């Protein structure tokens, strides 16, 4: 194990790591929560959802509304789209102090890199099968996103891909594209 567990057990090993004096639980949670996203994020998010609503409404009208007795294809989408727009505009006002969500932190890059590797996997999957892209993804996630040592990253990645191959190709016999 890396140092993570070592400092937790320097006290009595039989004891659960205690976090100082008894604090109100609400405060304890605060320390590991990230700051809320803030008013700008709220405005941006509300405008994006409002835009989705407007786009939906425009296409819905184009689909034809029909009448209440004979509803067309666009009537229901129009009703929901209008609801999206109204609710989004309400959210612009309600959330102007920005009390929810989470700010992006420097760690958010990890999620972005993760997303890019997933897209890479999707692109490569039909071309060269899943083994090599999966191995690379696993290496990147363990070594660079997870901070594992090279040794354990390589070891576990090979192991993981091997097990996945055994399960999805060997045992379940699925049609997932594979090279070997």
């Amino acid at each position, binding site marked *: 194990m890396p140092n*993570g*567990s070592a400092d937790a057990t320097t006290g009595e090993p039989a004891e*659960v790591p205690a976090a100082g004096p008894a604090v109100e639980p609400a405060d304890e949670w605060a320390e590991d929560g990230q*700051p809320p996203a803030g008013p700008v994020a709220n405005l941006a998010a509300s405008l994006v959802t409002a835009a989705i609503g407007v786009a939906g409404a425009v296409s819905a009208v184009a689909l034809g509304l029909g009448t209440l007795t004979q509803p067309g294809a666009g009537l229901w989408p129009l009703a929901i789209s209008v609801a*999206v727009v109204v609710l989004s505009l309400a959210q612009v006002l*309600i959330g102007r102090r920005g009390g929810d969500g989470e700010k992006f932190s420097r760690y958010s890059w990890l999620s972005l890199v993760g997303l890019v590797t997933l897209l890479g996997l999707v692109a490569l999957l039909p071309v060269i099968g899943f083994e090599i892209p999966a191995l690379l993804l696993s290496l990147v996630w363990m070594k660079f996103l997870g901070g594992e040592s090279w040794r354990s990253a390589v070891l576990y990645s090979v192991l993981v891909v091997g097990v996945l191959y055994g399960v999805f190709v060997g045992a379940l016999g699925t049609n997932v594209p594979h090279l070997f």
Partner: protein
Amino acid sequence: MESLQNVADGFAVVLEPTNLLYCLVGVVIGMLIGVLPGLGPAATIAILLPLTYGVEPVTAIIMLAGIFYGAQYGGTITSVLLRLPGEASSVVTVLDGHALARQGKAGTALGVAAVGSFIGGTVAIVGLTFLAPVVAGFALDFGPPEYAALALLGILLVSTIASGAKVKALIAAAIGLLLATVGRDAFTGAERFTFDNLSLADGIDFVPVAMGLFGLGEILYNLEERHRAVHPPGKVTNVWPSRKDLKESAGAVTRGSVLGFFLGILPGGGATIASMAAYAAEKKRAKDPSRFGKGAIEGVAGPETANNAAATSSFIPLLTLGIPANATMALMFGALLIQGITPGPQLVTEHPELFWGVVNSMYIGNVLLLIMSIPLVGVFVRILRVRAAILAPVTALITMIGAYTINNSVFDVLLVVVFGAVGYLMKKFGFEPGPLVLAFVLGSLLESSLRRSLLMFDGSAVGFFTRPISATLLVVFVLVAVLPLVRAVRDRRANPVPASDTPVINREEESV
């Protein structure tokens, strides 16, 4: 009696070796992911949906149900030992459970929680056995107007009762309804929002949406959170609760069972709300409320019993009305649809083996979980030593390959990734993915019921109010929608500084 015969047949279904095995697999997975902070039951069920294609419907649901209630047991362990709730429904257990652990009574807390969970779960199964057929019988007369009203009310309640920003949850739900309209319109044959893409012509599949929003979204989000180190706990000793502990918590367990059962049935209710309500109830009726937060055993027994009872009873609306009461049940709904079974009042009579098989599997599952939570708790605590950095790519790859195997389609995998990114962003911007998925699942039922009703009523919306049940449901809908607004306006008049007090404990709120 015919129904007793069905119950007995249900046991025969459960005792088939395959079903027993899947029940065991389900509860073990549930227990594991309950212990591991990060992936919740909804995410896990979403990720494992492709696995259910190849098996019998009853087997699939037995396993998925096992994951759901198994996670309620597992979530307790990390709450008590690490002050780190593995599941949202175990958040309140942290308060007294971890205080007990600090006093060296972790074993007592875990033991009482396990026994309470078992009793709560069992009481709820018995309740489910008797109540579900009655509700289903009542709902057999429901027509399109009732279903439209019920679906509307369900979506509204799920969006507004959950913690977090309510308007944002409603926006998410509305967008879920909009997503459900993608594809060919069943009434006119017109193609809606397909952008001339053949893959979209049949609409967006439920599974990639759920796998993306719940599964991959959660995984991407955890990549960022992972740097918060988890310290594996030391040894856990003496998990067997003493007679005195059990006696002290007997009242809390009884109240938790009843409260949890009823809160689980309500749309928007479920395990999380039930555990919080049970904690509040115990604190309120205690002679010395100041003990709470400092290691009151009732503060563990009540919520842990209630969350299990609620997890079980939340199957009632799904299996009897075909209306999922929460996000996890929306996944079960999706899983049943995949199997070609539409949940609804006819389920009990048309598929009794499925209905009673699933219900009765819960008895077995609860016994298995009791065994795993008391004698085997040490094994599960060790799981915490597996590092998140290694688990993350494993879950991501299972999701990706699983998504491919549904239709052997790369487009599906891409959809999962796209919805994964959407799910991540939703979390960052304070939108709950649950209401979106629930609304997406109910979208086509809601639209077709509404349109059929309009045809029935000759285009007049007043028709909804001429039928007693749909009228009642719609009145409740309006009340639920309008009352919070009225209250907010009144509060603002009473004290001009906007107060941000929410009844439920909300992590985001506390972190200001």
